[in-house]
């Protein structure tokens, strides 16, 4: 087991390295204008330009440049997303600072959204799975179909239109400057974003839970459980769900890891200052260090989430422990 985890960990490092290399290559090849020029500001003299170049390390060969960024991968204090390499071209702020400042917002969005989609999606999936072909099942799957098909931004604007513009029940987008995160949540600014995010995931999870449950309930051990005289509720929850939900746990880990990297569309539509919004902005302004920083940050979340899932799965499925 320990061996297995070490291998996965090393593999994770490899993945991060590849991600950074690819991102770097894309930007090196991208004709986006001279970054030095942008950083240099308005008054550009040849000398100043050259100074900026040197400061940013743009005069060095590409592999040296890459090396500077690669250093930022190592989770060592002072090295991780270090300020020298990861310094935003656009607004002259260390990338690390910006990311950590925005992290709580994205965190609240992700956590809240995840809670909502679990609470909506899983019960719908269970009811659909138990009462197949009933009205509840068909309604649940219709919901799932809509949730999976509807684009996130469409849902977002629809919700805004309905609950803010028309009905005025909930506040609209963005967080006014000066308002703390806690206050924003209390004012309900996150409610529509949470619903937006969760609908797509809830739909997906509902379908997965339903499918898994149907398959599980046709297994032989369910028949044995019934033959023992257990109540149907116990059979479904302790025997059926226990097996049906285990794969869902792994999916959830991945999805949460992904969300923590920034729910780009939702944050943009609702104008929430999270990591996703930062990522989009950096792309549009070809702020390479920022893009690199955000990408790596998101990648790290996913790799860590994967590791946690692997460990969790071994706890949940005893057959895996002896692999």
């Amino acid at each position, binding site marked *: 087991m320990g*061996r297995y985890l*070490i*291998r996965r960990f*090393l593999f994770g490092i490899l993945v991060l390295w590849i991600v950074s290399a690819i991102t770097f290559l894309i930007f090196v090849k991208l004709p986006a204008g001279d970054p030095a020029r942008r950083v240099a500001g308005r008054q550009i003299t040849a000398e100043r330009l050259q100074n900026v170049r040197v400061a940013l390390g743009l005069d060095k060969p590409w592999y040296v440049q890459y090396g500077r960024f690669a250093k930022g991968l190592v989770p060592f204090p002072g090295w991780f997303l270090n300020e020298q390499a990861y310094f935003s071209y656009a607004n002259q702020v260390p990338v690390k600072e910006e990311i950590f400042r925005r992290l709580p917002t994205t965190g609240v969005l992700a956590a809240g959204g995840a809670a909502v989609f679990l609470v909506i999606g899983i019960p719908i999936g269970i009811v659909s799975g138990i009462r197949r072909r009933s009205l509840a099942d068909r309604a649940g799957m219709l919901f799932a179909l809509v949730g999976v098909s509807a684009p996130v931004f469409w849902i977002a604007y629809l919700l805004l239109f309905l609950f803010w513009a028309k009905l005025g029940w909930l506040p609209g987008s963005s967080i006014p400057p000066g308002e703390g995160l806690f206050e924003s949540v209390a004012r309900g600014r996150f409610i529509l974003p949470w619903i937006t995010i969760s609908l797509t995931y809830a739909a997906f999870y509902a379908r997965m839970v339903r499918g898994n449950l149907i398959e599980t309930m046709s297994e032989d051990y369910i028949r044995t459980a019934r033959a023992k005289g257990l109540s149907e509720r116990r059979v479904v929850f302790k025997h059926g769900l226990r097996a049906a939900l285990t794969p869902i746990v792994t999916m959830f880990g991945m999805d949460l890891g992904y969300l923590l990297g920034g729910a780009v569309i939702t944050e943009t539509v609702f104008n929430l200052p999270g990591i996703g919004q930062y990522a989009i902005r950096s792309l549009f302004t070809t702020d390479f260090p920022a893009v690199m920083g955000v990408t790596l940050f998101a990648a790290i979340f996913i790799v860590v989430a994967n590791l946690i899932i692997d460990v969790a799965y071994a706890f949940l499925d005893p057959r895996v422990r002896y692999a």
Partner: protein
Amino acid sequence: MSATEVATELIPSGIGEREPLVKLVGAKKHFPITRGIIFQKKIGQVHAVDGVDLEVYPGETLGLVGETGCGKSTTARLMTKLYDLTEGQVFFDGVDITKFNRNQMRPLRREIQMIFQDPYASLNPRKTVGTIIGVPFRVHGTLSKSKIKSEVQELMELVGLNPEHYNRYPHEFSGGQRQRIGVARSLALRPRLIVCDEPVSALDVSIQAQILNLLEDLQEEFHLTYVFIAHDLSVVKHMSDRVAVMYLGKIAEIAPGDTLYENPKHPYTGALLSAVPIPDPNLAAQKKRIVLEGDVPSPIDPPSGCRFHPRCPRAQFPTCREVEPELTRHHRGQFAACHFPLEDRAVIES
């Protein structure tokens, strides 16, 4: 006794030649078990087949029996070179094919065919029956396209299928019919050897007899040689001229069918036979049971000396634990690998 000595001793009934069609000499097949962080290191192996000498004579049916993990399926696959040997040699028609590569094996593949157990899994559900049976012709390019269909339909009739069902799909047939399709396919290129790996185990009892009769008829008509693997000892008894009993990768006993069943010499054979339920209540009551304790051990770490010694009711120590018995000759054509073989008529009073 060496393989050659064993070979020259045997003259299966009704068969004139002495040259075996297939021969395994000291055959071993080990599957590695690996472990490691980045580089996989071998920490053990599954001794699936661990030193087997076997001959199959033209025209005979050799039965292979044994329980889970005995290596009978692996042995059969070594004979057909579906697996490469870890050690030892395999001969086909006197030629050493152990080291043959795929190109060299190609022409031989027409002579050696296999029928599998699961009629539901061994046919491609997306192809029509006609296509499935015709595959061998296409692969080996032996017939022109126009002739394939008529040849396939002839084969279908031969195995008892309606040739008009040429365009149907496997799911439209019953289990027994699907098995017939498998038989037709294996027969297409008129092979000399067909290895049947549990061909009737997945079928209903009333259908099994139909398929077994079919296999026997085809053997006579086309002068086929069969290696017949099954876990059902009564089926093997019916089909086989000689039977080899395997245990943990080695042959425990090999004898002509009737001899083996009436007069087993290896205690494992005796235990196997006495464990088979007899559909005759009075006879069953008279049966002498040789009871084995425990489960079949794993081929990863076989016991020392005679592999059967931990479960053998007749084992005597230290001999059985330390010395691995060789196949010794008993009655004509019967060989058992045991230091303290059974007395005559130890199991069934007929």
